[in-house]
């Protein structure tokens, strides 16, 4: 008798859960620093959807390191959309048939609705006078950056340093390699992720300069106050394009293709762009950029596409086993 009652109550709970989800539920699998951004985006999108189509929509989030998140989706985490740090991580999903190979051309701007870049975070008053990339290879300057093999952000930072050296007069792969080798000689700690590196620099007091996502640097500055750290904008840096995509196979199974696509398109609307800017991502929209101009100083950037080809080539050349990072990184 007791067993039947228990069974019934379990069924009731299951049913009520189901009833709650009678609207549409989407699962967005994202990387670490986007927590605050997508909290706002999800609320705004749900309200927008309700006003236009009149249904309830629930968006669940999962955050973690970009590569780890991609592996979870590969291993069966039923993501309807992925919003990751690197196109390479979404390419890995496409390679295994989870979405179309041409996913990056399905949305505007290489499927990256917002961008970021790599900047320097230095200690208050900039005691080591760090102004630009060449200052990072001076003896006695300690640079904190995570391991490019385990951190998406660190891959952008590595490419930013490489690209800077490459674009100097008489720059070549050889000079870039030498520059990066010297830079990594100054790296005392290789954390596995961007947040850990920020922690090492800010809380543990290790290092003179942190190579950081611009959005992380702005967030750190806001939470710590301007007395603790300063942001230095280098003369050149990389245009980091964190991409978004609908995971076709999962969305088809959940019958959520239309909603999932609308969700990602919402990121390109003025409202979505302003939210991105509010959370320190550089918006694509000129209007949103105008509004937040004070926050985003002008910076000359180069993109992966223009400088390096695509991410598969980048991965192969720089970050695969025996690749350039293994040849010039710390301990090499």
């Amino acid at each position, binding site marked *: 008798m007791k067993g039947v009652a228990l069974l019934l109550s379990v069924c009731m709970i299951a049913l009520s859960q189901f009833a709650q989800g009678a609207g549409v539920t989407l699962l967005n699998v994202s990387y670490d620093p986007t927590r605050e951004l997508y909290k706002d985006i999800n609320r705004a999108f749900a309200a927008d959807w309700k006003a236009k189509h009149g249904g309830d929509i629930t968006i669940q989030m999962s955050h973690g390191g970009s*590569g780890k998140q991609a592996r979870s989706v590969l291993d069966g985490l039923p993501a309807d959309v992925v919003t990751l740090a690197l196109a390479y991580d979404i390419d890995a999903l496409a390679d295994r048939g989870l979405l179309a190979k041409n996913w990056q051309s399905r949305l505007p701007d290489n499927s990256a609705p917002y961008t970021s870049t790599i900047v320097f975070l230095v200690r208050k008053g900039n005691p080591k006078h760090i102004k630009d990339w060449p200052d990072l290879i001076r003896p006695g300057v300690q640079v904190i950056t995570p*391991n490019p093999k385990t951190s998406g952000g660190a891959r952008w930072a590595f490419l930013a340093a490489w690209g800077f050296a490459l674009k100097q007069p008489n720059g070549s792969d050889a000079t870039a390699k030498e520059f990066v080798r010297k830079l990594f000689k100054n790296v005392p*700690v290789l*954390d*596995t992720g961007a947040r850990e590196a920020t922690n090492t620099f800010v809380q*543990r*007091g290790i290092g003179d300069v942190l190579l950081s996502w611009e959005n992380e640097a702005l967030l750190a500055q806001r939470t710590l106050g301007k007395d603790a750290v300063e942001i230095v904008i280098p003369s050149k840096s990389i245009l980091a394009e964190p991409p978004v995509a609908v995971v076709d196979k999962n969305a088809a199974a959940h019958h959520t293709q239309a909603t999932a696509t609308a969700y990602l398109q919402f990121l390109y609307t003025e409202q979505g762009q302003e939210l991105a800017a509010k959370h320190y991502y550089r918006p694509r929209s000129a209007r949103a950029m105008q509004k937040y101009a004070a926050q985003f100083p002008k910076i000359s950037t180069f993109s992966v596409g223009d400088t390096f080809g695509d991410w598969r080539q980048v991965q192969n050349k720089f970050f695969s*086993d025996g690749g350039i990072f293994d040849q010039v*990184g710390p*301990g090499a």
Partner: protein
Amino acid sequence: MRKGILPGFGLGLGYVCAYLGLMVLLPLAALVWKAYGIGASELLQLLSSPRTFAALRLSFAGAFASALVNVVAGLLVGWVLVRYRFPGRRVLDAAVDLPFALPTAVAGIALTALYAPNGWIGQYLKPLGIQIAYTPLGVLVAMTFVGFPFVVRTLQPVLESLDHGVEEAAHTLGATRAQAFRRVILPTLTPALLTGFALALARAVGEYGSVIFIAGNIPMRSEIAPLLIVEKLEQFNYAGASAMAVVMLGFSLLLLLLLSLLQRRSARWQEAAA
């Protein structure tokens, strides 16, 4: 096969095989199966790479050293907790298990905060030229932390069941306290110490969560083997990661077998001596 006296042997063995198979052997078999995808040349390259060697050396040597530290410290702690009665003993006894309960990442962050050059302990070590966080020494500290409860917990029941009569007999026969400890008590404890050592070692070899925060993770210097596995996973190199894992597993298995052999030897030696 001779039929045993105890009933239920078939059922019991079946249960053991099924349970071990499902919980331990199946995941390990899957690992070996995944590792099979790696080519011979890639495997050779992996094994001969100085970086792999350095990481394996740090993981195993660090684990070995930390297990040794834990044997000495654990023997002292276990001894005091069992032999003496004092207020707060139960609280201290419960505190021994804390390294088990704490999420390893939290332990890593806490240890780093203590031992970093600006940390509570680190700031006093810095003038002495000693740096613990972000060096191989930090790896040792984290490994010692997570392996600590094993020695104490394997030792306690043996210490409790130690017959005082034997010790007293040694004293009446004219043995000094040091002699009684070395010749009478220590041999009885040796099998438990070896078990504790093996458990602490195995735990430390596989430790990832706490170590990566304090290690600094510089290749060839402070990079542990499990981190190499994670690096390979980040490149979606499942075969390489599993191959590395199988290598680690092989070493661990070999070590544990050796230790259990040693343990049986010491038990037999003790029986012969008795």
